[in-house]
C-alpha cells in the first residue's frame, strides 16, 4: 500500500489510485473538511468493491471497479462546502474508465471563488480531455445556477472509452476566438450586459471575434436563489486549444465594470503566460498523458502551479510515470492504462 503524508490535494491521490486500482493510505495533520467525505461518498457511489476507512488521522482507500451503477441516472448532492466543479474535475476523468455510461445529476454551487466555474469546465476542460480521447461522447448541461446557497444543478452524461491516446501538444497557435458565459441569478438583467460590454471593451484592442453569452437564472417556485454573478471566458486558438479564466462578484470586485475588466485581463494574463493549456487545467493534461498508451506524449506548458508539482509527484509514486522536462515541454511515455472495467461481447 502506498502511503502519503501531509498531502493537501488528496483528490489526485484518490483519482490515480482509482485509475490504477492500487490501495492508498493518506495521513492528515488536520481534517480537511466535509468536502473529503462528499468526495469519498461520490467515489463510492460510482464504484463496486470500494472500501474506505476514514478516521481523524487519515484515510485508507481501497478502490473497486467503476460501474456507474450500470448507467442508471444518479442524483448526488455536492453540498455547499465546495462547488460542483471541484468534483466534476475528478468525475469526468473517472467516467472515461467506467463500465457503463455515467448519468448523474449533481446539485450544488455552479460558480464560486475557490474553484473554476462549471462553464469553464464545459468550454475548456472537456475539449482538453477530448484532445486525449477523441471518440469520447459527453454532454454536460447546467440546468440551474447556484451561487453560495448551492441551488445549482448540472446533468452529466459520459460514455466510457478503451484507452487514452498519446498526444503531442506543442504549438498553440494564435488565438482566433473569444467566447464566454456571463451568468447570474437574482440580479438585474442589465448588470450582466454591463459586464459583457466591459469585457468587449478590453478585447477590442486585440480581436474582433468576441462573443459572451448572458445566462440569467429565472426564478423558480420553491427555490430560493442567492444573488450573484460571474463570468467565464475562453480563448480558442487556431489549433483547437482552449484557455479559460473565471471572475466572480465579490466584496472587492463589487462593480460589474470591474468584474468584466478583471475577467478580460485575467484571460490576457493566461494567454500571455500559459502554453497549450491554462494554468488551472494543466495538471489534468499531465495526468492524462501519464495514463495514455505506451507512446511519447508531449505538452508545452507555461507557468507551473504548485498544485501541478505535487500532482506530478503523486503520478510518479502511484503510476510510476516520470516526466522529462525540457524548456517547458513536458514529455513522457504513458503507462498504457486500459479500461479494465469496460464491457466486451
Amino acid at each position, binding site marked *: 500500500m502506498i502511503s502519503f503524508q501531509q*498531502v493537501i490535494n488528496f483528490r489526485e491521490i484518490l483519482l490515480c489510485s482509482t485509475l490504477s486500482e492500487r490501495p492508498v493510505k493518506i495521513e492528515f495533520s488536520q481534517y480537511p473538511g466535509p468536502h473529503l467525505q462528499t468526495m469519498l461518498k461520490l467515489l463510492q457511489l460510482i464504484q463496486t468493491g470500494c472500501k474506505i476507512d476514514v478516521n481523524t488521522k487519515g484515510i485508507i482507500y481501497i478502490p473497486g471497479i467503476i460501474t456507474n451503477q450500470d448507467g442508471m441516472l444518479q442524483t448526488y448532492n455536492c453540498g455547499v462546502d465546495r462547488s460542483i466543479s471541484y468534483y466534476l474535475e475528478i468525475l469526468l476523468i473517472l467516467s472515461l474508465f467506467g463500465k457503463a455510461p455515467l448519468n448523474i445529476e449533481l446539485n450544488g454551487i455552479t460558480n464560486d471563488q475557490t474553484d473554476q466555474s462549471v462553464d469553464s469546465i464545459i468550454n475548456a476542460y472537456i475539449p482538453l480531455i477530448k484532445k486525449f480521447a477523441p471518440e469520447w461522447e459527453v454532454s454536460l448541461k447546467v440546468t440551474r445556477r447556484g451561487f453560495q446557497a448551492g441551488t445549482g444543478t448540472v446533468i452529466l452524461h459520459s460514455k466510457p472509452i478503451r484507452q487514452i491516446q498519446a498526444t503531442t501538444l506543442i504549438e498553440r497557435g494564435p*488565438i482566433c476566438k473569444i467566447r464566454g458565459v456571463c451568468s447570474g441569478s437574482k440580479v438585474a438583467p442589465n448588470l450582466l450586459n454591463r459586464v459583457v460590454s466591459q469585457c468587449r471593451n478590453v478585447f477590442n484592442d486585440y480581436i474582433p471575434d468576441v462573443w459572451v453569452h448572458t445566462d440569467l437564472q429565472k426564478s423558480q417556485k420553491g427555490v430560493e436563489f442567492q444573488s450573484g454573478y460571474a463570468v467565464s471566458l475562453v480563448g480558442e486558438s487556431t489549433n483547437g486549444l482552449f484557455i479559460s479564466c473565471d471572475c466572480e462578484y465579490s466584496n472587492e470586485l463589487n462593480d460589474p465594470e470591474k468584474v468584466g475588466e*478583471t475577467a478580460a485581463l485575467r484571460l490576457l494574463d493566461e494567454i500571455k503566460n500559459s502554453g497549450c493549456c491554462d494554468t488551472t487545467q494543466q495538471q489534468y493534461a499531465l495526468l492524462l498523458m501519464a495514463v495514455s498508451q505506451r507512446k511519447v506524449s508531449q505538452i508545452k506548458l*507555461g507557468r507551473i502551479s*504548485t498544485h501541478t508539482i505535487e500532482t506530478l509527484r503523486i503520478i510518479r509514486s502511484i503510476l510510476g510515470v516520470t516526466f522529462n522536462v525540457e524548456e517547458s515541454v513536458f514529455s513522457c511515455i504513458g503507462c498504457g492504462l*486500459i479500461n479494465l472495467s469496460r464491457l466486451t461481447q
Partner: protein
Amino acid sequence: MSDSEEEQVKQAPIIKPHQKQQKDFYAEQLQANEEAESQAPLLVVVQGPKGSGKTTLIKSLVKHYTGQKIKKLVGPVTVRSNKQHRVTFVECPSDINAMSDLSKVADLALILIDASIGFEMETFEYLSLLNNHGFPNVMGVLTHIDFFKDNKQLRKTRKKYKKRFEYETGGNYKLFYLQALKNEYYLKQDIHNLARFISIIKIAPVRWKTEHPFILADRYEQGKDNTTTFYGYVRGCTYRLNDRIHFVGQGDYYIDSFEEVLDPVEIITNQKKHRSLKDTEKLVYAPMSSVGALTIDATAGYITIPQPIFTDKNKFVNIEEQEDEEIEEQEQEQELPEGVRMVRELQQLTEGIDKQLEEEEDVQLLEGFDLEEEKPIKKKINQQQIQQQRELVRLKNRVNVKIENGTVMPITDTLLATDLHELIYQNKTGINEFDSVRYIAKVQERESYREIKELFVTGFYGQTDVVDLENLEKQIEEEQLEEEQEQEKKGENQKEKDDNQNQKENQQQRQQLVNQLTNSNLGLYKKGTYVKIVIKDFSSSIKDDYPMILARSEVGEDNLGFIKIRIKKHRWHSNILKSNDPIIISLGWRRFQTIPIYCVQDPNDRLRFVKYTPEYDYCYAIFYGNFAPQGTGLVCTQSLSNKLSKFRIAATGVVLEMNHQFDVMKKLKLVGEPFKVIKNTAFIKGMFNSSLEVAKFQGGLIKTVSGLRGHIKKPSKLGPDGSFRATFEDKIQMSDLVFCRTWVRMHIERFYRLITSNVKLMKTMWELRQEKQIPLEFKPDSTYQDQERVPVKFAPLRIPNNLQQNLPFESKEKVKSLSFRERLRQQVEKNLPVKSNMTDKEKEVYSLIQRLNTIKNEKEKKREQKDIQKQKVKKAQIKGQKQHLEEGKRKYKQQKQKDKFIKQVKKQQQQQQ
C-alpha cells in the same frame, strides 16, 4: 458507363470494423517495431515430445551459427546470427506449466515431430496453448525421417504430416524435414536451410507481449544474504521500472535493484566493410550450459578437462579419430591458437585457479563477460550528469528563485528546465497549501498587456506597417502557380520519393523522442537491453531446466476480483466441467487454481447458473482471480500431473468482464397446496414458513400446474403459519399444485491459489471420494417409481337451457334432448299394456319361449360370474408374482452397483499404490 461504375462500387471490398481494428493494430505495431532502435534477440522455443531430438536440434543450430559445441544444454542459449540479429534458443520441457509459460513468450515456436511415431499429444496441447496465448510464428520440424526405408512410403507420410500440420495451425506454416544424424548432429544442409528461415522471419506481433514487458533470465546467482540476481534481455516492449516484479510460477517479489549491464552478445553497428561475421564475432552465450570446456556457476568458472582430448602435448598418446579432427588441424599449424595455449598452460599449473585469480586483477574469460562485478556504465554517466545539474541548480537557487507559497513559478530564462525537474522530483517538501487547482492570476495594468497582441490572429494589427493587400494577394497567387509547375515537373516518382523521405524523417523524429526519454534516466529500459535484477528474500528454489520469466507487474493487473469469461470445453477433453470444482487457469502471466461457476445468459441478460459446461458449446464462467485486459486468452487444466493418459487441456476461453460482484442466479420453484377455494380466491399453505416470508413475496406471480396465473395477496390467519390468500384468473381445483418461480443468487467462492513449484492443490469432490472411499450418495426418494393413477370420472356436461338457446346454430343440439319429465312419460307410455291380437295357442307358445329364454339367460349369467371370479383370481396371482419379481430385481441391481463401485475404487487404489 454507369453500369460499370456501379459494378466497381459493388466490387470494392467491405472492411468490417473489427477487421479494421486488427489491421490498425498490426500496422501500429509494425511501425512501433521499426521505431525501436534495438531489438531483443529472437526467442525461439523448441518444443517436442520426449526423444524427438530437441537438444540435438539446438546443438546443431548453435554449431551452425558459431562453430561451437555445447556439451550439456541447460537454460537459454543466445547466439549472434548476423550483425544486427541475435537468436535465443530455449528448450521446452514437456511439463504443462513450462509449456504454457513458454507459449506466452515465444517469438517463434519450432515444433518437433517424430516421424517414426507421428503426432503426439504434446504437440496438439502446445498448439492449442499457442492458439490461446496469441499465435506467434510456428515452424514444424519432422525428425527421425530415416525410420522410413521405403522411398514411396516416406513421400506419402511426408505429405500426410504436412497436410495435418497445416490443418492444425490453420495457416501456411513451413514444415521442415531433418534427415539422418551424422556424428550426433543433423545434416549441414538441412540445418543451413532451417537457420536461413529463422533469420528471415518476420515477427508477428502478439498483443499480450507488445503491452507487457518481460525478461527471460539467462542465468542467476544466489548470494549470501538471500539475495538472488537474475540476468536477461528486456523483451516485449519498453520496461518501465516498478517496485515489484512477478516471477512466473513463483510469485511477486520486490525489486532490490535493476541495472543495465554490458550486453554479452552486442549488436555490431559501426563496421560496414564485411557483411558476414568474422570468426571472432561469432558468439554463443549460454551461461547455464557447458559450452566446450567452460562452465560458469553461481560463484566461479570451471574448465572441464576430459582426459583424451586435452592431454599434454608430450603425453599425447591415443585419440579417438572422430572427435579430435579439429585438434589435429590446429596442431598442424605452427602457432597454437590462444585458447589452446591457455588450456595447456592451465594444465601445467600447480596452484589452484582461485589463487591465481587473486593475484591477477582483471581476468576476462569470455569477451564481454566479467567474473567480477558488472559495471553499470550508463548509470555512472547519468549520475555524473545529475550531480553537475544539481550543483547548477543550487547556484541558481541561491541567486533568484524562491518558491512562494501558493504562487506560481514562471519559466523564464533565469530558471533552467533541469531546475524544474529537480524541484518536482528531488525536493519532497509539500509546497501546496490549499486544495484547489484554480489559479487566479494577479492582474497587472491594462496597458502592460499591449505586447501580447501578436498572440492573436489579428496579430499584425497596429504593429506592422499597413500592408498592401492587393500586392500580397498577387504574390501569393504567383507562388502557388510556381509550386504547381514544379510539382508537375517532378512527376509521380518524385512524389513517392518525397513521401518516403517524409516518412523516414518522421520516423527519425519519433525515434529521437523515444531515445531522448529512454536515455534520460527516467527508469525506462528499451527492449533488447541486457539487465541485472536483484531480488531480496527470494526463498523459493529454482529449477535449472525450467524457464525463468520475470514479468513486470502491470498497473491494475495484480488485483484480485471476479472475472467473467467465455469458455468452451476443449473438444478432446473427455469430461465436461462441473461448477464449483477447482480448476487451474493460466491467464496473463499467472497460473492459479480457482473455483469457477458456469452460467449462461438468458435473453433478459440474467446470468443463469448451470451445473455443467455444455458439451460442444460456449458458456460463461465466473471465478475469482487476477485481472487481465479484456480479450486475453486463457487455458484451463484440471491437474498438473505429467501423466499423458488423457488430453490435459480442459477448456479454453477469453476474458470478457471484470467486476467485484456478479449476480449469478439459480432457478428455485416454491410449491404450495390450496386448502380452501372460494371462487377465484384460494388459500394456500406449505409454500412459505412464516408470514414475514409471505410479506416479502406479496404481489408475486404464482401459477398452477394447468397454467392458471395468479397473485400472492396477503398472509392469512387461517391454516398453518406461512399460508396466504391468493387470487387466480379462474377458480382452481383443490387438487391443484401452486408454483412460485423465484431466483436465488449463487455464492461465488473467493478461492485463489497461485501455482508455484511446491503448491498443494485443492482436490475435487471426485478425488476426495476416491481417496476416502465414500460412495456416491443414494437417495431412494430420487429413483423413478411406477405411478398408479385412478381414472377420473367426470360428471356429464350439462348446458343450461338459457345458454343453449343463445348458442349459435353450429353448436346447438340438432336432436332435441328430452327433459326428465318427458323421458318419464315416454317410458310409462312404452310400458303400458298393448292390446294383443294373439290367439290362445299363440299365447301359450309365446309364454313357453319366454320361460325357456329366462332359464337360458339365468344360466349364462351364472357362468359369466364364475368366469369373472376365475379371471380375478388369476389376475391377483399374476400381479403378486410380478411385484415380487420386480422387488427382487431392484434389490439385486442395487447390490450389483455397490459391488461394482467398491471394486473400482479398490482397483484404483491398487494402481495408485
